[in-house]
């Protein structure tokens, strides 16, 4: 195979599909550190022009990790819907972009082919998209799912309430849940990142969350983001669990570094279907983030975005209720600054939605990255415009347990207000019933956590 193009009369050559994909990627510090990024802007553009001409079937036949070497590649490829794949297999990446953006292509049309795509294909299209392409395209791909609330409906934007605490103190976490509920946050899930990943600890927290749900008759789903095996133990012990979580990776070796295998996720999904209190049919919750594989020395010379889209394709196997990119969490060695974080957030959303999964975003940053709260606020507007299923939230955006900043509950309410969006219908009805929300806006009673001390 030959991959060659000219720019201003200069010839650029690439040795394989993987190199074209990597060099066509927008600038990311992680790809540069891995030594696979384009060496110049010209080379990046040259790679994009080559990528535009590559047909989908070539991307399927040449995944960034071979079928025989990687169970994620196998799980994704075996899960391809042959009817959907037939419709797109001869389209080039450039033709796919044009088709997605065309006004005559409907949301239903895109949905009908999404299960025929691999991660490599979705990432390839994203690499040819500008930021507004990613927004316009993403907006055309709503992904409606249901666990307790119906998430992802057009005109709606959900939020995860993230009540973390450095020692999992029950009273502290309860206070933080009240703080979020007071802003009508939590339709996606009330999800705790535990400090202590042990069954007894999780059981205690599940019980506390269940009490709040019962007392206030909340259409709430819960999740504790321990290791999936800990949650599976809790399910078997009869804990009241709404969603089952795991962080995932885009190569088998990186997934193994999390102590996770495809078979383990298969089992977790079956247990969730059997034991979760929520109605389903969507039960699994995944988190991802560009750079995971490189940080585990398991990137196999593939770029961050392609590997991220492979996570989305793996997640699809489980018809999840939510998948969010934790887009600025990993640090400047993978995404250096605001520009790289914002670009990655839009790409991750686009790829996930194109692959047919309910993408949300944890817009965030650490204090050693070249970004600040404005980055989060800008990106929230951008991905709300692109139709994100949900955002993450924590009190004032300051997570003292994970030591990073994400969105504040205020920010979600502000996006609802400024962009005419609302929470999930079941959740909106509940919040209106309590008098905390009216016509999608916070009422005078809202924002007061002591409201929830009444019962």
């Amino acid at each position, binding site marked *: 195979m030959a991959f060659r193009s000219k720019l201003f009369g200069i010839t650029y050559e690439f040795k394989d599909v993987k190199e074209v994909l990597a060099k066509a990627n927008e600038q990311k510090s992680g790809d540069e550190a891995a030594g696979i990024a384009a060496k110049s802007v010209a080379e990046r553009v040259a790679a994009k022009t080559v990528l535009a001409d590559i047909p989908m079937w070539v991307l399927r036949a040449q995944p960034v990790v071979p079928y025989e070497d990687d169970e994620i590649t196998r799980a994704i490829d075996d899960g391809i819907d042959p009817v959907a794949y037939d419709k797109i297999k001869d389209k080039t990446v450039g033709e796919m972009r044009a088709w997605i953006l065309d006004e005559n292509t409907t949301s239903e049309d895109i949905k009908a082919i999404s299960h025929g795509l691999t991660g490599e294909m979705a990432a390839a299209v994203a690499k040819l998209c500008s930021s507004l392409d990613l927004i316009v395209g993403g907006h055309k791909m709503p992904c409606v799912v249901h666990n307790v609330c119906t998430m992802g409906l057009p005109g709606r934007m959900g939020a995860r309430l993230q009540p973390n605490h450095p020692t999992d103190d029950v009273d502290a976490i309860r206070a933080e849940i009240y703080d979020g509920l007071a802003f009508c946050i939590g339709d996606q899930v009330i999800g705790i990142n535990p400090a202590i990943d042990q069954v007894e600890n999780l059981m205690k927290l599940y019980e506390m969350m269940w009490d709040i749900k019962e007392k206030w008759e909340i259409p709430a789903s819960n999740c504790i983001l321990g290791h999936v095996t800990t949650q599976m133990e809790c399910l078997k012990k009869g804990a009241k669990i709404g969603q089952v979580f795991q962080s995932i990776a885009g190569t088998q070796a990186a997934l193994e570094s999390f102590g996770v295998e495809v078979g383990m996720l298969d089992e977790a999904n079956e247990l969730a279907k059997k034991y979760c209190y929520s109605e389903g049919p969507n039960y699994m919750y995944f988190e991802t983030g560009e750079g995971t594989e490189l940080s585990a020395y398991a990137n196999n010379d593939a770029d961050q975005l392609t590997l991220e889209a492979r996570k989305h394709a793996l997640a699809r196997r489980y018809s999840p209720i939510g998948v969010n990119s934790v887009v600025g969490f990993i640090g400047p060695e993978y995404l250096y600054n605001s520009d790289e974080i914002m670009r990655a957030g839009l790409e991750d959303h686009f790829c996930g939605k194109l692959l047919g999964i309910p993408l949300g975003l944890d817009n965030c940053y650490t204090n050693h990255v070249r970004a600040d709260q404005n980055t989060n606020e800008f990106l929230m507007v951008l991905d709300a415009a692109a139709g994100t299923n949900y955002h993450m939230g924590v009190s*004032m955006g300051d997570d003292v347990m994970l030591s990073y900043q994400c969105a504040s509950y205020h920010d979600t309410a502000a996006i609802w207000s400024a962009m005419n969006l609302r929470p999930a219908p079941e959740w909106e009805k509940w919040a209106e019933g309590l008098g905390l929300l009216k016509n999608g806006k916070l009422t005078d009673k809202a924002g007061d956590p*002591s409201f929830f001390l009444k019962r």
Partner: protein
Amino acid sequence: MAAYELYKGKQNLADVQAKRATAAKCAFDVEDVTTQEKRHTVGVEHPVDAAGCDALIHATDQRVCVGRNGPRPKLLTYFQMRADHGATQDSLKEIVPDEVITKLGLLHVGETAANGSLETYLRLPPLGRKLSDEAKAVVLQKCVKNPTVQFVVSNGLSGFAIERYAGDVLKSMLDGLKAAGITVGTPVYVNRARVGIMNDFGTLLNADVVVVLIGERPGLIISDALSIYMGYKPRWEPLTTDANRDNICMISKKGKNPIEAAAEAVGLIKDYLKYKTSGVELATAKRG
């Protein structure tokens, strides 16, 4: 410009000047928004349960019950967030002045392979684990070889951590080691190092124990935390990793006390020398 006459205004000039003089007498003496008291202010207007709000605030370090202006935060909360984030940025950028390094009794050996660039240091962490060629030469020329304990101090991601706590930790550790009859090499300072620099020093100087005092990634609540990382015979060949290291973290006014941290670290060094290992292996060895 002469085509138009300047607009003359309609107001009485004496009135304008009188108002200006009155305004000049105003004083704006604004309270510190970052005090614990201000942080514990209930921001919610007309809460259902004011005492309840107070209890919720005291239940957690997260910023709850802050109130709102419409769907946006109030200025008090906004200023606190900006100030706290500003402190992290200042701490991150801080280059420890030479006189502070000298006063700490440290030999400044220079730069890592990141060559003093914060951007390179952030983008390429492996470079912060290796000394520059110049710094290597200084180390080989001026440092005591084959030390039992080698101290390495670096700002890492927080210069304020070094300026505020390295002195206390260093002094207490040196006193403790001296009392235990354990000899120490030439304590050094390196700009913008990573924890893995201990392998470079272990290898270059053939040190038994390397102790790295380094500024941690700043957080909004604590932006000046110091960490002690240490390991027994850290080397590149055969490679010793995090598993070989011990860490005492969050040394700060709002975190762990520097003197207590130093005592713990000296205790660990005694264990290293007794069991001839560190990190995970040490924990296993001590369990017997």
